[in-house]
């Protein structure tokens, strides 16, 4: 049976190779074959699986759709798979930098910009040990398939599970689906479940996909079919097709948009200011004018997308990209062989740019004035779909606040022109190798750091346990400390309790929150009293019992107050003499032998107060401890020689000096990574400079003198602060004076006009007199 399957597979492969060859030939001639009609044909087509077999939805256990084979008869997959979205290293020239993928590991405070393209400041995933499998699993949520997500047999690395998950073929419908059923969230979910070969079918709404490949044994493959022994947990992925999509010949209607809707692009390319309200966000000026993304960002069958930046025609000679730059449509680029430009393409208005000196057009790209947010004293924070995992909806919140991405900063490009850029600050644990700093895998750091990187876990465990001792269902256990109350979050971490911000608590204590009031978990009582209120006793016992149930707790829970110590022994609350120092307040502690230990350490408490509810994840103390831990581990006998270790965050490199003190330095590896932004384009009336020269030329103009402070997971006062001038390369002092000159410029204009009028009047008079003399009308009186 197995042999028969293999021979089928071989045949399928041979047929596939033949079809690919035919498809390629067809694709090459495809443009010639277009009959000129501008409509898209109805796609009522037979869907095929990855063995090139037609899918019959009524058959038991049909396989998911393979677009490689379903689309191949008409559209060459081998030509398409070299497209910009599928082949990350495809172009010979990487072109202008684009948004990197950002490897975020919150627990270790890691944010590493990645790209397979050799752009400045980014790391090649392979060099950091990320295999195509890892990369697909991490970023497949916003990948379109193909390329590294569809590796050849030889590229499948050990430890990957491609045999189980299948490959992520190019999902044609991720862009070209015209159906409103297309669900990007479903795609992300299926990728996370390692249901790679099923993801496209589920996302397109062609069928309902069940099962989770990540739970299957690594030996499972698609030939094995459903798992008859487990219908609850390790359920093999399977599809139930929507039968109403198919006709009697098993052809399915696929609602194809040749020119994708903007929503399909925005699923992965959305950028939104942090804190913006959805109703308050305007569309790009072009979109508002009726253009679709694909009107400018075009492609032919090769799917090399026109990005639309100036100079792209040199990076991608095969594209007609020059026509689709800003200038291409609005000004009409003059053809290289001479002649006048053809402006106004797609109704683009011709810009007059009244009163703007020529130097601006030599030194600034169009986007400086027309794209992104207006410059402010501080760069705006934005979230992007790919970096901050936007657009994946469901009960769980996928979107993250990290990494922090800022815009605009104005960076001079290779063409000498400034253009607005987005920026992120890398953060990672690294190892010095010569002058370079090489990032460490977060996993390695977490292993070395142990509890240091999870200071919330102890407090979270206590809060989870205290929930069992809550007086009623509405009461939520919290830790009041440092002016905040901290409660358990849905993912087992800590949150600042809503409504409790700024309610100062003098000291840390455990409490129950109800509405907006806090009640101490241990009620107030007189420890020296002969008899304690039975209700108080019951509450104390409930708490101590609950805490005792915490797995791996480092002692017996006890209540210490004054000279007394209460603990639960044999189910009864018993009092004894406090072996430790007398306590002025009633405190829950742990009794380990004769030693009284605090329920949570000072380190945990300090770290939680410093980080929870803020954008920070780490404190300097944590960094110091982790660096010590990493160094200690490497110094262990037999360990491979490595280090010294550093932590990079907020524009600085943090390391331990000879005395073990945390010191900082500047280093190129800590510098910000920038990439140009082109959207969103603002209408003319909102462009930079519409209010006059002073929009940019002022003594303190944000365009020239804004500051960009390093952001990142580390709470520190030593963050790098960069001036806008360091990106623009414009000299600060000169531009301050130049800006100052605009204060007196109106006066200068009046002066020039006045002098001109005086001079011109006298010259006219002299000319009239001279003319009179030439004509003999006037004779000089002697």
């Amino acid at each position, binding site marked *: 049976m197995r042999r028969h399957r293999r021979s089928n597979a071989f045949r399928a492969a041979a047929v596939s190779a033949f079809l690919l060859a035919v498809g390629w030939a067809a694709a090459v001639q495809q443009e010639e074959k277009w009959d000129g009609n501008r409509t898209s044909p109805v796609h009522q087509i037979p869907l095929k699986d990855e063995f090139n077999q037609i899918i019959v939805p009524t058959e038991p256990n049909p396989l998911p759709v393979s677009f490689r084979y379903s689309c191949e008869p008409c559209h060459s997959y081998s030509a398409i798979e070299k497209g910009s979205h599928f082949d990350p290293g495809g172009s010979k020239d990487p072109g202008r930098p684009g948004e990197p993928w950002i490897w975020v590991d919150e627990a270790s405070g890691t944010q590493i910009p990645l790209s397979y393209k050799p752009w400045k400041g980014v790391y090649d995933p392979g060099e950091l040990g990320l295999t195509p499998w890892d990369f697909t699993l991490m970023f497949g949520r916003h990948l379109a398939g193909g390329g590294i997500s569809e590796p050849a047999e030889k590229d499948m690395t050990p430890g990957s599970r491609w045999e189980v998950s299948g490959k992520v073929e190019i999902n044609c419908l991720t862009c070209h689906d015209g159906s409103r059923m297309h669900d990007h969230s479903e795609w992300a979910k299926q990728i996370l479940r390692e249901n790679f070969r099923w993801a496209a079918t589920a996302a397109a709404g062609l069928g309902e996909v069940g099962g989770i490949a990540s739970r299957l044994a690594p030996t499972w493959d698609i030939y094995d079919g459903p798992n008859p022994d487990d219908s609850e947990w390790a359920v093999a992925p399977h599809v139930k097709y929507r039968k109403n999509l198919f006709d009697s010949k098993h052809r399915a209607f696929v609602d194809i948009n040749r020119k994708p809707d903007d929503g399909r692009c925005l699923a992965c390319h959305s950028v939104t200011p942090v804190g913006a309200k959805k109703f308050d966000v305007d569309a790009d000026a072009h979109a508002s004018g009726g253009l679709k993304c694909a009107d400018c960002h075009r492609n032919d069958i090769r799917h090399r997308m026109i990005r639309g930046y100036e100079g792209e025609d040199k990076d991608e000679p095969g594209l007609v990209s020059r026509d689709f730059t800003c200038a291409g449509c609005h000004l009409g680029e003059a053809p290289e062989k001479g002649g006048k430009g053809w402006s106004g393409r797609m109704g683009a208005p011709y810009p007059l740019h009244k*009163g703007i000196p020529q130097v601006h057009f030599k030194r600034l790209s169009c986007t400086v004035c027309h794209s992104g947010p207006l410059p402010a004293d501080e760069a705006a924070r934005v979230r992007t779909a790919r970096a901050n995992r936007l657009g994946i909806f469901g009960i769980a919140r996928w979107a993250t606040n990290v990494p922090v991405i800022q815009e605009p900063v104005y960076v001079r490009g290779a063409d000498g022109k400034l253009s607005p850029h987005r920026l992120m600050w890398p953060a990672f644990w690294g190892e010095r190798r010569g002058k370079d700093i090489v990032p460490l895998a977060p996993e390695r750091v977490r292993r070395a750091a142990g509890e240091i990187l999870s200071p919330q876990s102890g407090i979270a465990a206590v809060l989870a346990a205290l929930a069992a001792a809550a007086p009623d269902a509405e009461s939520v256990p919290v830790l009041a400390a440092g002016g905040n109350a901290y409660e358990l979050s849905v993912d087992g971490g800590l949150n600042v309790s809503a409504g409790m911000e700024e309610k100062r608590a003098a000291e840390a204590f455990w409490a129950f929150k109800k509405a907006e009031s806090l009640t101490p978990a241990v009620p107030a009582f007189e420890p020296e009293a002969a008899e304690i209120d039975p209700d108080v006793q019951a509450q104390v016992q409930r708490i101590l019992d609950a805490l005792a149930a915490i797995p791996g707790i480092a002692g017996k829970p006890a209540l210490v107050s004054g000279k007394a110590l209460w603990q639960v022994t044999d189910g009864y609350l018993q009092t004894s003499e406090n072996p430790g120092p007398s306590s002025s307040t009633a405190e829950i502690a742990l009794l380990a032998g004769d030693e009284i230990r605090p329920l949570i350490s000072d380190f945990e408490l300090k770290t939680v107060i410093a980080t929870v509810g803020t954008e920070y994840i780490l404190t300097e103390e944590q960094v110091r401890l982790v660096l010590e831990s990493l160094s200690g581990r490497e110094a262990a006998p037999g360990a491979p020689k490595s280090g010294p270790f550093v932590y990079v965050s907020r524009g600085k490199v943090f390391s331990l000096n000879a005395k073990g003190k945390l010191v900082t330095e500047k280093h190129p590896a800590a510098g910000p990574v920038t990439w140009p932004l082109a959207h969103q384009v603002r209408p003319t009336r909102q462009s930079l400079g519409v209010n006059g020269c002073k929009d940019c030329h002022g003594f303190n103009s944000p365009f020239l003198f804004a500051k960009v402070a390093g952001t990142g997971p580390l709470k520190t006062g030593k963050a790098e602060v960069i001036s806008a001038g360091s990106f623009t390369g414009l000299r600060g002092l000169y531009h301050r004076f130049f800006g100052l000159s605009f204060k007196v410029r109106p006066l200068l204009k009046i002066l*020039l006009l006045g002098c001109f009028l005086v*001079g011109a009047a006298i*010259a006219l008079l*002299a000319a009239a007199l001279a003319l009179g003399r030439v004509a003999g009308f006037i004779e000089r009186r002697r």
Partner: protein
Amino acid sequence: MLFAILSIILIAFSIFRITYYRFLAVSGISRLYPAPSLLAKYAAWMRKSAPPYFSRDGWKKAKSALLAWVAPRYPGWRIWTLASLALSFLYLAASGLGFAIFSRRGLYGIPLLLHVSAGGLFAMSLAAVVIFRAREFQLEDKGEASALARCMVCPFVMDFPLKLLEKCVFWGYILASLVLIITALGSMMPYFTFKAQLGLIEIHRYSALASVLAAMTFVDAAVVPRSS
């Protein structure tokens, strides 16, 4: 590029024309058009005559000639109008033409800032000079007017009166300067499209060249004494 080449050629030609005419006047040669033999004599004369102008004695002579010319024409405080005109014009011409000829980027940075500032001073002092001195440069009588008319018909006439030349270049300078002022002002106003601004800048540059040539001719005709 064209402007740079044209500027170099015209300024060089203007220097040649001025010195060559001086040479002719000193040598008593009436032939106007240079022949190879004359050019050799001219070169020898230049080698002999030019260095003293750059000596201390030469500077002193130049200063006294200038003061002798200035004193009756700009009495009292009026001398400052000429001084500011001359100094601002010197800087404007040096920075503007210098950057236009030697820098592909054109005028920028601190020199540009100073150029704009000097432009204001230049405009003010030009207006003052025009107010105080223009009447000295109007056509005296019908004879002068006729000569001017003849010159306009045929600019290569031999008997172009020096006084008339002085007047012509004065007004030429004033007109070029007025164009300079109005084009600079136009570039600062939000009324002209980008293409119009490019035109304004070109006009500004060529007016600057014209004003430099006029100033050189005027100084030669009016200020430098006609003696051996």
